[in-house]
Protein backbone atom coordinates (compact mmCIF):
# COMPACT_ATOMS: atom_id res chain seq x y z
CA UNK A 1 0.00 0.00 0.00
CA UNK A 2 2.74 2.40 0.99
CA UNK A 3 4.63 1.57 -2.18
CA UNK A 4 1.63 2.07 -4.45
CA UNK A 5 0.92 5.37 -2.72
CA UNK A 6 4.42 6.77 -3.07
CA UNK A 7 4.66 5.53 -6.65
CA UNK A 8 1.44 7.41 -7.48
CA UNK A 9 2.91 10.45 -5.75
CA UNK A 10 6.08 10.45 -7.87
CA UNK A 11 4.06 9.96 -11.07
CA UNK A 12 1.79 12.87 -10.09
CA UNK A 13 4.80 15.10 -9.41
CA UNK A 14 6.36 14.31 -12.81
CA UNK A 15 2.99 14.78 -14.55
CA UNK A 16 2.42 18.19 -12.90
CA UNK A 17 5.95 19.24 -13.81
CA UNK A 18 5.56 18.26 -17.47
CA UNK A 19 2.06 19.69 -17.91
CA UNK A 20 3.18 22.96 -16.28
CA UNK A 21 6.24 23.14 -18.50
CA UNK A 22 4.08 22.40 -21.56
CA UNK A 23 1.88 25.34 -20.55
CA UNK A 24 4.92 27.61 -20.25
CA UNK A 25 6.31 26.50 -23.62
CA UNK A 26 3.09 26.83 -25.62
CA UNK A 27 1.69 29.86 -23.79
CA UNK A 28 0.10 32.62 -25.86
CA UNK A 29 -0.62 34.94 -22.95
CA UNK A 30 1.69 36.10 -20.16
CA UNK A 31 -0.92 35.62 -17.40
CA UNK A 32 -1.44 32.06 -18.62
CA UNK A 33 2.33 31.65 -18.52
CA UNK A 34 2.50 32.76 -14.87
CA UNK A 35 -0.27 30.35 -13.91
CA UNK A 36 1.43 27.49 -15.80
CA UNK A 37 4.50 28.24 -13.73
CA UNK A 38 2.48 27.77 -10.52
CA UNK A 39 1.27 24.38 -11.82
CA UNK A 40 4.90 23.48 -12.54
CA UNK A 41 5.87 24.51 -9.04
CA UNK A 42 3.03 22.50 -7.51
CA UNK A 43 4.97 19.40 -8.61
CA UNK A 44 7.62 20.21 -5.99
CA UNK A 45 4.95 20.28 -3.27
CA UNK A 46 3.73 16.81 -4.23
CA UNK A 47 7.28 15.50 -4.55
CA UNK A 48 8.37 16.80 -1.15
CA UNK A 49 5.19 15.62 0.56
CA UNK A 50 5.72 12.12 -0.83
CA UNK A 51 9.41 12.09 0.15
CA UNK A 52 8.42 12.88 3.73
CA UNK A 53 5.54 10.40 3.80
CA UNK A 54 5.84 7.33 6.04
CA UNK A 55 3.09 4.70 5.72
CA UNK A 56 0.83 4.59 8.75
CA UNK A 57 2.53 7.34 10.77
CA UNK A 58 0.69 10.45 12.06
CA UNK A 59 1.40 14.12 11.32
CA UNK A 60 4.24 15.61 13.43
CA UNK A 61 1.85 17.39 15.80
CA UNK A 62 2.31 15.82 19.22
CA UNK A 63 -1.10 16.46 20.76
CA UNK A 64 -4.39 14.57 20.86
CA UNK A 65 -3.15 11.03 21.34
CA UNK A 66 0.18 11.28 19.51
CA UNK A 67 2.85 10.59 22.13
CA UNK A 68 5.61 13.22 22.15
CA UNK A 69 8.79 11.79 20.69
CA UNK A 70 7.06 8.95 18.85
CA UNK A 71 7.74 8.43 15.12
CA UNK A 72 5.82 10.68 12.73
CA UNK A 73 6.08 11.79 9.11
CA UNK A 74 9.00 14.07 8.13
CA UNK A 75 8.43 17.60 9.51
CA UNK A 76 11.38 19.14 7.64
CA UNK A 77 9.93 18.87 4.14
CA UNK A 78 6.55 20.07 5.40
CA UNK A 79 8.18 23.16 6.91
CA UNK A 80 9.94 23.84 3.60
CA UNK A 81 6.72 23.54 1.64
CA UNK A 82 4.52 25.69 3.84
CA UNK A 83 6.88 28.64 3.65
CA UNK A 84 7.31 28.10 -0.06
CA UNK A 85 3.56 28.18 -0.80
CA UNK A 86 3.29 31.64 0.74
CA UNK A 87 6.49 32.92 -0.85
CA UNK A 88 5.41 31.56 -4.24
CA UNK A 89 2.21 33.62 -4.09
CA UNK A 90 4.22 36.84 -3.76
CA UNK A 91 6.63 35.78 -6.49
CA UNK A 92 3.64 35.21 -8.82
CA UNK A 93 2.45 38.70 -7.87
CA UNK A 94 5.87 40.01 -8.94
CA UNK A 95 5.57 38.18 -12.28
CA UNK A 96 2.08 39.61 -12.80
CA UNK A 97 3.42 43.10 -12.05
CA UNK A 98 6.06 42.55 -14.73
CA UNK A 99 3.23 41.43 -17.06
CA UNK A 100 1.40 44.70 -16.39
CA UNK A 101 4.56 46.68 -17.23
CA UNK A 102 5.12 44.69 -20.43
CA UNK A 103 1.54 45.32 -21.48
CA UNK A 104 1.96 49.04 -20.88
CA UNK A 105 5.23 49.17 -22.79
CA UNK A 106 4.50 47.01 -25.79
CA UNK A 107 0.69 46.79 -25.85
CA UNK A 108 0.63 43.02 -26.07
CA UNK A 109 0.52 40.10 -23.66
CA UNK A 110 1.55 37.44 -26.16
CA UNK A 111 5.09 36.31 -25.26
CA UNK A 112 5.77 35.61 -28.95
CA UNK A 113 4.95 39.20 -29.91
CA UNK A 114 6.81 40.88 -27.07
CA UNK A 115 10.09 42.26 -28.32
CA UNK A 116 11.54 44.08 -25.35
CA UNK A 117 15.16 43.11 -25.76
CA UNK A 118 16.77 46.13 -27.28
CA UNK A 119 20.49 46.57 -26.78
Amino acid at each position, binding site marked *: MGHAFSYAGYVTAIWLFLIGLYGVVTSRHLVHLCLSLTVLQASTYVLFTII*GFRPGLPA*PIFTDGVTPGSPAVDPVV*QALMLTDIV*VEATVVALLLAITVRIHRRSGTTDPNQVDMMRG
Partner: protein
Amino acid sequence: MTPKWRLIVFFIGAAGIVCLFALVRAPVLRLNEFRNRYAQQINTRTFAERNVTDAVSAVNFDYRGFDTIGEEFILFVSVLGSLVLLRMAEERKDEILLDALDRKRDVGPSDATRLWILAMIAPKLVFGVYIVTHGQLTPGGGFQGGVILATAALILYLGEGFAVFRDVLSHTAIEVGEAAGAGAFVLIGMLAWFWRRPFLTNILPLGKSHELTSGGTMALISIATGLEVAAGFILLLYAFLQENLTIEGEE
Protein backbone atom coordinates in the same frame (compact mmCIF):
# COMPACT_ATOMS: atom_id res chain seq x y z
CA MET B 1 12.82 30.13 -31.91
CA THR B 2 9.55 29.33 -33.65
CA PRO B 3 6.76 27.76 -31.54
CA LYS B 4 7.11 24.53 -33.50
CA TRP B 5 10.78 24.14 -32.65
CA ARG B 6 10.12 25.11 -29.05
CA LEU B 7 7.58 22.29 -28.84
CA ILE B 8 10.04 19.80 -30.34
CA VAL B 9 12.68 20.80 -27.78
CA PHE B 10 10.05 20.47 -25.05
CA PHE B 11 9.11 16.94 -26.10
CA ILE B 12 12.77 15.85 -26.22
CA GLY B 13 13.25 17.25 -22.71
CA ALA B 14 10.02 15.68 -21.46
CA ALA B 15 11.05 12.30 -22.85
CA GLY B 16 14.38 12.73 -21.06
CA ILE B 17 12.70 13.49 -17.74
CA VAL B 18 10.38 10.49 -18.06
CA CYS B 19 13.38 8.25 -18.92
CA LEU B 20 15.32 9.53 -15.90
CA PHE B 21 12.30 8.92 -13.70
CA ALA B 22 11.94 5.37 -15.00
CA LEU B 23 15.67 4.78 -14.35
CA VAL B 24 15.71 6.09 -10.77
CA ARG B 25 12.28 4.78 -9.76
CA ALA B 26 13.56 1.77 -7.87
CA PRO B 27 16.26 3.60 -5.86
CA VAL B 28 13.78 6.36 -5.08
CA LEU B 29 11.33 3.87 -3.63
CA ARG B 30 14.09 2.45 -1.47
CA LEU B 31 14.97 5.96 -0.39
CA ASN B 32 11.38 6.33 0.77
CA GLU B 33 11.87 3.47 3.19
CA PHE B 34 15.06 4.98 4.47
CA ARG B 35 14.04 7.11 7.41
CA ASN B 36 15.51 10.55 7.31
CA ARG B 37 17.72 10.73 10.42
CA TYR B 38 17.39 14.49 10.75
CA ALA B 39 13.58 14.37 10.65
CA GLN B 40 13.61 11.53 13.18
CA GLN B 41 15.83 13.51 15.53
CA ILE B 42 13.52 16.51 15.30
CA ASN B 43 10.43 14.38 15.92
CA THR B 44 11.93 12.76 19.01
CA ARG B 45 13.55 15.89 20.46
CA THR B 46 11.14 18.76 19.75
CA PHE B 47 8.88 18.14 22.72
CA ALA B 48 11.66 17.39 25.17
CA GLU B 49 13.96 20.24 24.12
CA ARG B 50 11.54 23.05 23.31
CA ASN B 51 8.26 22.18 25.07
CA VAL B 52 6.33 22.65 21.82
CA THR B 53 3.95 20.18 20.17
CA ASP B 54 4.18 21.22 16.50
CA ALA B 55 7.43 19.93 15.01
CA VAL B 56 6.81 21.74 11.71
CA SER B 57 6.75 25.15 13.40
CA ALA B 58 9.77 24.15 15.47
CA VAL B 59 11.70 23.51 12.24
CA ASN B 60 10.52 26.78 10.72
CA PHE B 61 11.01 29.15 13.61
CA ASP B 62 13.73 27.51 15.66
CA TYR B 63 15.84 24.61 14.32
CA ARG B 64 16.01 25.99 10.76
CA GLY B 65 15.12 29.59 11.63
CA PHE B 66 18.03 30.85 9.57
CA ASP B 67 16.53 29.34 6.40
CA THR B 68 13.18 30.92 7.22
CA ILE B 69 14.86 34.34 7.31
CA GLY B 70 15.97 33.66 3.75
CA GLU B 71 12.43 32.71 2.73
CA GLU B 72 11.06 35.79 4.46
CA PHE B 73 13.35 38.08 2.57
CA ILE B 74 12.42 36.47 -0.75
CA LEU B 75 8.86 37.43 0.17
CA PHE B 76 9.96 40.91 1.23
CA VAL B 77 11.93 41.54 -1.94
CA SER B 78 9.20 40.27 -4.28
CA VAL B 79 6.62 42.52 -2.61
CA LEU B 80 9.08 45.40 -2.95
CA GLY B 81 9.68 44.56 -6.60
CA SER B 82 5.95 44.45 -7.37
CA LEU B 83 5.43 47.84 -5.71
CA VAL B 84 8.30 49.41 -7.64
CA LEU B 85 7.10 47.97 -10.95
CA LEU B 86 3.51 49.10 -10.46
CA ARG B 87 4.38 52.64 -9.37
CA MET B 88 3.73 55.40 -11.86
CA ALA B 89 3.92 59.17 -11.76
CA GLU B 90 2.05 59.59 -8.48
CA GLU B 91 0.19 62.89 -9.01
CA ARG B 92 -1.21 61.85 -12.35
CA LYS B 93 -2.26 58.56 -10.85
CA ASP B 94 -4.21 60.22 -8.04
CA GLU B 95 -6.18 62.36 -10.48
CA ILE B 96 -7.13 59.42 -12.65
CA LEU B 97 -7.86 57.38 -9.57
CA LEU B 98 -10.26 59.90 -8.08
CA ASP B 99 -12.10 60.18 -11.39
CA ALA B 100 -12.54 56.44 -11.49
CA LEU B 101 -13.65 56.32 -7.87
CA ASP B 102 -16.24 59.04 -8.49
CA ARG B 103 -17.70 57.17 -11.36
CA LYS B 104 -17.77 53.87 -9.51
CA ARG B 105 -19.46 55.24 -6.40
CA ASP B 106 -23.01 54.38 -7.48
CA VAL B 107 -22.35 50.82 -8.54
CA GLY B 108 -21.48 48.52 -5.68
CA PRO B 109 -22.72 45.35 -4.02
CA SER B 110 -26.19 45.32 -2.48
CA ASP B 111 -26.64 46.25 1.19
CA ALA B 112 -27.32 42.62 2.12
CA THR B 113 -24.04 41.48 0.54
CA ARG B 114 -22.16 44.33 2.19
CA LEU B 115 -23.57 43.47 5.60
CA TRP B 116 -22.55 39.82 5.30
CA ILE B 117 -19.11 40.71 4.01
CA LEU B 118 -18.49 43.15 6.85
CA ALA B 119 -19.77 40.62 9.39
CA MET B 120 -17.07 38.21 8.15
CA ILE B 121 -14.21 40.59 8.90
CA ALA B 122 -14.16 40.11 12.69
CA PRO B 123 -14.17 36.28 12.57
CA LYS B 124 -11.43 36.38 9.94
CA LEU B 125 -9.27 38.63 12.11
CA VAL B 126 -9.80 36.43 15.18
CA PHE B 127 -9.07 33.26 13.20
CA GLY B 128 -5.95 34.81 11.66
CA VAL B 129 -4.58 35.91 15.04
CA TYR B 130 -5.43 32.47 16.48
CA ILE B 131 -3.48 30.70 13.71
CA VAL B 132 -0.50 33.07 14.09
CA THR B 133 -0.27 32.73 17.88
CA HIS B 134 -0.92 28.97 18.12
CA GLY B 135 1.77 27.97 15.62
CA GLN B 136 3.88 26.20 18.24
CA LEU B 137 0.92 24.13 19.52
CA THR B 138 -1.17 23.09 16.52
CA PRO B 139 -0.75 23.35 12.73
CA GLY B 140 -0.34 27.04 11.92
CA GLY B 141 2.10 29.85 12.42
CA GLY B 142 2.98 33.21 10.95
CA PHE B 143 2.91 32.24 7.29
CA GLN B 144 -0.57 30.69 7.24
CA GLY B 145 -2.09 33.14 9.73
CA GLY B 146 -0.63 36.14 7.90
CA VAL B 147 -2.39 35.15 4.69
CA ILE B 148 -5.71 34.71 6.56
CA LEU B 149 -5.29 38.19 8.09
CA ALA B 150 -4.68 39.65 4.63
CA THR B 151 -7.93 38.15 3.36
CA ALA B 152 -9.75 40.28 5.95
CA ALA B 153 -8.46 43.34 4.07
CA LEU B 154 -9.46 41.83 0.74
CA ILE B 155 -12.99 41.22 1.96
CA LEU B 156 -13.18 44.83 3.18
CA TYR B 157 -12.44 45.89 -0.40
CA LEU B 158 -15.08 43.50 -1.78
CA GLY B 159 -17.73 44.96 0.51
CA GLU B 160 -16.90 48.65 0.57
CA GLY B 161 -14.74 49.36 -2.46
CA PHE B 162 -11.31 50.90 -2.77
CA ALA B 163 -12.10 54.31 -1.25
CA VAL B 164 -12.99 52.79 2.15
CA PHE B 165 -10.15 50.24 1.85
CA ARG B 166 -7.73 53.14 1.44
CA ASP B 167 -9.19 55.12 4.32
CA VAL B 168 -9.19 52.22 6.79
CA LEU B 169 -5.75 50.83 5.92
CA SER B 170 -3.19 53.59 5.80
CA HIS B 171 -0.56 52.75 3.19
CA THR B 172 2.22 54.14 5.37
CA ALA B 173 1.13 52.10 8.40
CA ILE B 174 1.06 48.88 6.34
CA GLU B 175 4.51 49.65 4.92
CA VAL B 176 5.86 50.21 8.42
CA GLY B 177 4.17 46.96 9.52
CA GLU B 178 5.88 44.98 6.80
CA ALA B 179 9.29 46.43 7.52
CA ALA B 180 8.78 45.95 11.27
CA GLY B 181 7.84 42.30 10.76
CA ALA B 182 10.93 41.60 8.67
CA GLY B 183 13.16 43.58 11.03
CA ALA B 184 11.73 41.99 14.19
CA PHE B 185 12.67 38.51 12.97
CA VAL B 186 16.32 39.55 12.62
CA LEU B 187 16.29 41.47 15.91
CA ILE B 188 14.86 38.46 17.80
CA GLY B 189 17.69 36.45 16.28
CA MET B 190 20.23 39.01 17.42
CA LEU B 191 18.81 38.94 20.96
CA ALA B 192 20.88 35.80 21.54
CA TRP B 193 24.07 37.83 21.16
CA PHE B 194 23.43 39.47 24.55
CA TRP B 195 23.87 36.04 26.09
CA ARG B 196 26.95 35.46 23.91
CA ARG B 197 25.11 32.73 22.01
CA PRO B 198 24.93 32.20 18.22
CA PHE B 199 22.39 34.05 16.07
CA LEU B 200 18.78 32.80 16.49
CA THR B 201 19.51 30.69 19.57
CA ASN B 202 16.30 30.15 21.52
CA ILE B 203 17.29 32.00 24.71
CA LEU B 204 13.90 32.95 26.17
CA PRO B 205 12.25 30.77 28.87
CA LEU B 206 10.59 27.80 27.17
CA GLY B 207 7.42 27.91 29.28
CA LYS B 208 5.03 25.03 29.92
CA SER B 209 4.10 22.72 27.06
CA HIS B 210 0.55 22.99 25.65
CA GLU B 211 0.49 26.67 26.63
CA LEU B 212 0.66 29.80 24.47
CA THR B 213 3.91 30.91 26.11
CA SER B 214 5.75 27.69 25.29
CA GLY B 215 8.61 27.62 22.85
CA GLY B 216 10.52 30.77 23.88
CA THR B 217 11.39 32.90 20.85
CA MET B 218 9.30 30.69 18.55
CA ALA B 219 6.03 32.45 19.39
CA LEU B 220 7.61 35.90 18.89
CA ILE B 221 9.13 34.96 15.54
CA SER B 222 5.79 33.52 14.47
CA ILE B 223 4.05 36.82 15.29
CA ALA B 224 6.75 38.81 13.45
CA THR B 225 6.33 36.58 10.40
CA GLY B 226 2.55 36.90 10.57
CA LEU B 227 2.85 40.69 10.60
CA GLU B 228 5.19 40.69 7.62
CA VAL B 229 3.15 38.25 5.53
CA ALA B 230 -0.16 40.01 6.24
CA ALA B 231 1.29 43.46 5.52
CA GLY B 232 3.08 42.21 2.40
CA PHE B 233 -0.10 40.76 0.93
CA ILE B 234 -2.10 43.90 1.75
CA LEU B 235 0.57 46.01 0.01
CA LEU B 236 0.25 43.78 -3.06
CA LEU B 237 -3.54 44.23 -2.95
CA TYR B 238 -3.00 47.98 -2.73
CA ALA B 239 -0.68 48.06 -5.72
CA PHE B 240 -2.83 45.89 -7.98
CA LEU B 241 -6.12 47.60 -7.03
CA GLN B 242 -4.58 51.00 -7.70
CA GLU B 243 -3.24 49.81 -11.02
CA ASN B 244 -6.65 48.40 -11.94
CA LEU B 245 -8.44 51.64 -11.05
CA THR B 246 -5.88 53.69 -12.97
CA ILE B 247 -6.52 51.61 -16.09
CA GLU B 248 -10.28 52.01 -15.62
CA GLY B 249 -9.79 55.74 -15.05
CA GLU B 250 -7.80 56.10 -18.28
CA GLU B 251 -10.47 54.38 -20.36
